[in-house]
């Protein structure tokens, strides 16, 4: 379990986060939605350990391993696909033979086999994001943090990638925390959707998403659209 307790964040005069309490069960998929500037990305970065809270604390299981998927894919432009997937394993001192083995299966998993020698600038936005996911997942992380990973891909690719993310998560059940602007995406992927208020960011609603099966048909089900509309309504209340 990942426990966020009493986390606040102040940037100079700006009160970004105010007393956030949240427990995320192992293997759970949660999504944080909220208006721009509500501090949801900051919260994610604090959970990742790349930002420090002004108050409160984060508890993660001992020796648990995390990975972070950035909005812009954050690939090294001078490394080809294969070497980009190897990067995090290299940083974590995984030995060479094991790396190569894992790279092969990871690229297969995200449908990038055959692109090993391509460079990031030769890939589409969707492929870059797949690569970024593969790079994180080869680490077999206990938890995966995703900061608006699909915000810069086209609508169709976005839906395909959502389905792929769901499959990857369903296979490996890594704890997932996703930050997004897209309510449909949140409902499609999550066990719970966390709704945050504008600055200072507070959790205002936690919505359980009950669906067992997530596939393309879900998108046209009434219960699904109703939940999307409900949550969108909560967000619209602040506009």
């Amino acid at each position: 379990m990942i426990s966020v307790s009493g986390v606040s964040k102040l940037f100079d005069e700006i009160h970004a986060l105010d007393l956030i309490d949240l427990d995320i069960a192992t293997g759970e998929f949660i999504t944080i939605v909220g208006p721009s500037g509500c501090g949801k990305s900051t919260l994610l970065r604090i959970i990742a350990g790349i930002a420090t809270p002004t108050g409160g604390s984060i508890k993660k299981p001992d020796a648990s391993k995390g990975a972070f998927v950035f909005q812009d894919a954050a690939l090294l432009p001078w490394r080809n696909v294969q070497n980009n997937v190897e990067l995090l394993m290299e940083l974590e001192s995984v030995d060479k033979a094991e790396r190569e083995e894992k790279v092969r299966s990871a690229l297969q998993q995200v449908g990038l086999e055959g692109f090993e020698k391509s460079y990031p600038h030769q890939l589409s936005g969707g492929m870059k994001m797949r690569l970024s996911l593969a790079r994180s997942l080869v680490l077999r992380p206990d938890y995966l943090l995703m900061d608006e990973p699909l915000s810069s891909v086209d609508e169709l690719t976005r839906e395909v990638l959502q389905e792929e993310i769901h499959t990857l998560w369903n296979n490996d059940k890594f704890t997932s925390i996703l930050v997004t602007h897209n309510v449909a995406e949140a409902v499609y992927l999550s066990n719970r959707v966390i709704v945050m208020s504008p600055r200072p960011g507070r959790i205002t609603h936690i919505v359980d998403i009950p669906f067992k099966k997530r596939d393309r048909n879900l998108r046209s089900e009434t219960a699904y659209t109703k939940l999307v509309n409900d949550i969108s309504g909560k967000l619209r209340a602040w506009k």
Partner: protein
Amino acid sequence: MEIKKILPPILVLIIFLAIWSLGAKIYDMAFLLPGPLTVAEAFIKDFQLVIGGLWITFQEALYGYLLAITIGMTFAAIMSQSRILERSFYPYAILLQTLPAVAVAPLIVLWFGFDMQSVVIISLIISLFPIINNTLLGLKSTSITLVELFQMHNQSRFVNFFKLRLPAAIPNVIAGLRISAGLSVIGAIVGEFIIGSGSEGGGLGVMIIYAQADLETPLVIALILTATALGFAFFSIVSVLGHYLLHNWHESEIA
């Protein structure tokens, strides 16, 4: 394709040579303004001499350049590791640029003697700043996202430097090396001017001074062109290196 690429600069060269020839003919004072053919003749006549001078200047500029690369990149790497170090030393790196190197050259000669050593040092001083400045800029421009990514998976400064900051800085490093390529030759010529009369069988700069004193204008021009070609060769080698390092990924070199 290749022809289309080479043709325009060759055309410019031909036009330039034609205007030069015409000008020399009209002016009609070969000892002040010799035409290109006269210069070519002087070059061929004194070929042995010119090549001998070129060899010396080449060595001086090369050593000065290599020293500038080593010192400049090391200095930039050190400054990139800490704000305090950067703030302490960078102002003095700027002074290196504003320092009138030509005026300091006589002092260098006083300290290090009338020989190659002094010329190398003068070449080093003149070519150092662009390397420091560009390398430092590159090392400091790493994407914050990438820095955070590394931070999550490996805390080592060493790894961060060699796997992230340095490769990301290569486009800037190459830019600095290109500027300094020509400067290192200029520095060597300036150095030779200063030690000039005091040295035996010097490089191109020394020869220019002697040829000028003898009013051998065609030879002076031939020597100048040779020195220019040397700087251009340095520049080209760095450009090839840059292309090799960047053609796979950097906007500046992607075909």
